């Protein structure tokens, strides 16, 4: 096969165990910049490209109810004017070199990703823009007003969509006064009063080197990666490390909400506070959830709700691990007339799983998938970049990926049963039905 680039030096040094699974050792290089930002780098010259991300502890968990949406708006505005460049100049300079800019935010993290060709002209121009955005954002007033108007319009539209309504109510019931209750996008009433000065203050407080994590993978040397990381973080504002987020309190009773909606389907969400990123029950809950509702057609929810009864196209459960306890969520959509039946099946399936745990056979099948499928988790630069950012932000072990397979293999039926019994109380769950069968 002819190819115009070289396939040299394998990125993944494969270690193939006799048992049929394979895992890869990912050589992660780790250091701190002169300002204290933590850097995670994987050198890979197989493709002439480079992926870079920078994350800050500046997620919506830093918002207050009165200023809900501030974290997202601050991150969103980074690319809309910086260091003397207008929003159009930023977009054009990136497009001129074919670079892709991305942004992301959740409850814990806010950040920027960049994908560029690794050739010097393209790389230097793209990284120059990224570093100016991150370190010299201007938050121009006119742009801010326009973007607030657009976000408010989106929120008003979201208020008509059953899936958005369900998600919004779910988080507010599950988290009450904890900041995880606040949605990233904010509220109509909290966005409108936000001023440029609010964004500047938020930026100064949270976009600091001491809570920044830079992840880099691609076709650059260690030396170049060091220069890139320096350039991205040398001029970040200085501030004290952000305070820890409050702990999540567990609900004391069940909370049920039925919300009328004219849609043909009911959108059903159930949940309970789940796990932390560094949770001691992480692997027991993760592997257990694969069996319960994370493993698609291998999961109990799909088997009971879809395969046996044809009640839904999509039914799932997941744990979203965060700094504090992220949600454990079960979700499905089904036509209104059968919402009660579907909900009953879901509740019974969950209770049975918590009471009895998985079978040995189910656990074996889950491990076969998670262990055998491990190479698929790190088969592209994009996937590896995401792991580097998570490992860095949550200060996981540099051997997190190497440890993944053995830690999955160690999980027992008893551990899963115990973890679910201790961690998910089916009597105190939040249940949301948008478009309830009785309501109109």
């Amino acid at each position, binding site marked *: 096969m002819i190819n115009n680039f070289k396939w040299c030096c394998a990125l993944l040094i494969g270690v193939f165990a006799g048992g049929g699974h394979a895992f*890869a050792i990912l050589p992660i290089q780790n250091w701190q910049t002169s300002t204290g930002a933590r850097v995670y780098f994987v050198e890979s010259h197989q493709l002439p490209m480079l992926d870079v991300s920078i994350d800050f502890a500046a997620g919506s968990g830093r918002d207050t109810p009165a200023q809900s949406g501030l974290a997202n708006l601050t991150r969103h505005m980074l690319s809309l004017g910086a260091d003397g460049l207008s929003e159009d100049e930023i977009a054009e300079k990136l497009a001129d070199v074919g670079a892709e800019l991305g942004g992301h935010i959740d409850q814990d993290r806010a950040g920027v990703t960049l994908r560029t060709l690794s050739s010097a002209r393209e790389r230097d121009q793209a990284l120059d823009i990224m570093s100016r955005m991150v370190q010299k954002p201007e938050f121009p007033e006119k742009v801010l007003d326009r973007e607030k108007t657009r976000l408010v319009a989106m929120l008003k539209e979201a208020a008509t969509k059953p899936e958005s309504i369900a998600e919004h109510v779910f988080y507010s019931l599950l988290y009450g006064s904890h900041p995880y209750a606040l949605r990233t996008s904010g509220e109509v009433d909290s966005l409108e009063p936000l001023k440029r000065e609010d964004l500047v203050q938020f930026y100064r407080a949270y976009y600091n080197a001491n809570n920044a994590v830079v992840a880099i993978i691609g076709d650059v040397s260690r030396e170049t990666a060091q220069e890139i990381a320096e350039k991205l973080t040398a001029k970040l504002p200085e501030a004290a490390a952000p305070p820890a987020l409050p702990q999540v309190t567990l609900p004391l009773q069940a909370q049920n909400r039925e919300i009328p909606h004219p*849609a043909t*389907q009911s959108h059903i969400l159930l949940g309970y506070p789940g796990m932390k990123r560094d949770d001691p029950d992480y692997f027991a809950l993760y592997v257990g959830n694969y069996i319960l509702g994370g493993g698609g057609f291998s999961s109990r929810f799909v088997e009971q709700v879809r395969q046996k009864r044809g009640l839904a196209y999509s039914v799932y459960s997941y744990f979203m691990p965060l700094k504090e306890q992220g949600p454990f969520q079960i979700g499905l959509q089904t036509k209104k007339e059968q919402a009660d039946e579907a909900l009953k099946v879901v509740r019974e399936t969950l209770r049975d799983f918590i009471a009895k745990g998985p079978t040995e056979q189910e656990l074996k099948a889950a491990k076969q998938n998670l262990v055998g499928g491990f190479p698929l988790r790190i088969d592209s630069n994009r996937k590896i970049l995401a792991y580097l950012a998570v490992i860095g932000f949550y200060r996981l072990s540099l051997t997190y990926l190497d440890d993944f397979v053995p830690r999955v293999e160690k999980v027992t039926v008893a551990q899963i049963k115990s973890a679910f019994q201790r961690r998910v109380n089916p009597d105190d769950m939040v249940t949301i039905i948008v478009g309830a069968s009785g309501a109109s």
Partner: protein
Amino acid sequence: MIAISRFPARPSFALIFIWVSLLPYPACAAGSEYTLSNGLKVIVKEDHRAPVVVSMVWYKVGSMDEVNGTTGVAHVLEHMMFKGTKMVPSGEFSKIIAQAGGRDNAFTSKDYTAFFQQLHKSKLPLALKLEADRMHNLNFSKDGFAKEIKVVMEERRWRTDDKPQALVYEQLLATTFEAHPYRRPVIGWMNDLENMRADDAAQWYRTWYAPNNATLVVVGDVKPNEVFNLAQRYFGAIKPKVLPIRKPQEEPQQTGIRRVTVKAPAKLPYLMMSYHAAVLRDAERDWEPYALEILAGVLDGNESARLNRSLVRETQIASSTGVNYDSNERGPGLFYLEGVPSEGKTVADLETAIRGELQKIINDGVTNEELNRVKAQVIANEVFARDSVMAQAHQIGGWEMSGLSYKTLDILVDKLKAVNADQVQAVAKRYFNDDNLTIAVLDPQPLDNKKPLKEPEGLRND
């Protein structure tokens, strides 16, 4: 599990390699190909970055091959392909792949139906064995069908009926095309799903699922000859079928602007426009589709491209805009434009503004700066796509299904780079005219002003 014991996870490779040298194949940068004597085309692209493989079987049959009364059957059959053969009981296919550490799924479009598995490279024989089995041994029960058709109806409710913008898209297509089957939704009309019988799906399978209507695409840490031999081993004995003649069903020339309105519970209005446009039929000689691809980039290729810059950022008529054009289709092409008006603006304001932007290109053309910007993105995207084995397999399958070769990928970047400003202006002039235009708008209705519907009205194809 019983089924897994019938599928040894690690078959001996020694047996497979015996006649490697018997299979010559042409190779090019995009991949290597070999066609079995039963007509199954096999395309392999090597990517040795990770010990993984993606295996896809693409059938050249999609919703455009359906007839009225059984719309949606191509997609229903995609679901039924997981409902059992003599060897693999209903529901076991995905479990077997999962226990091999794999992920699997399938997708149906207007042009094709495709099934894929992502696995460790050592599990490729398992995936091929399972795909070969269901290519000719599918044997689902009436009961299995009865449950799955309910799932598909839920999918339609979820995907379309409760999503106002999806309803607008559905109506846009139904209005843009009068004769061509692209007028029908891939998911099918609800009433056709309600009245579909197990035998409709079985008949579809008997008609279209054959090696001579399929292409196997494998991308990953494999050698072409290994894959060709595995394909021969597992698919070689499957008999070809005489496929039905495909009628062209050409859309008659549109002779004036068409408009349609969709009322649905929502807050913001929404506008979609479609212009009939050329697609690639001869990748070497055609130039218009390449110019249309570049034109789409000039209008919407980045945040400062014309529509976003002018309508969202400057005049603030729109809160969002978008453009879509695909030069790679089995059927006729469309150039789509869409947008959500800002609060206080109407869909009419937005339509005027979008058409004003199109008129500017017709009158004044595009700048070299814009052209070069789009080309820079084309060049970079070609590299970026190589980061994903899935993306590479998708590209190969997509080009094969439209009847163009995957080898188009070898010339695509050069063809796009060769487009000049005059050509971009020329295709804008030629295709952006009123007689060629269909407009669909969402007329938002208050949520509490509508009784719950068992099924939406106005969706039937009659």
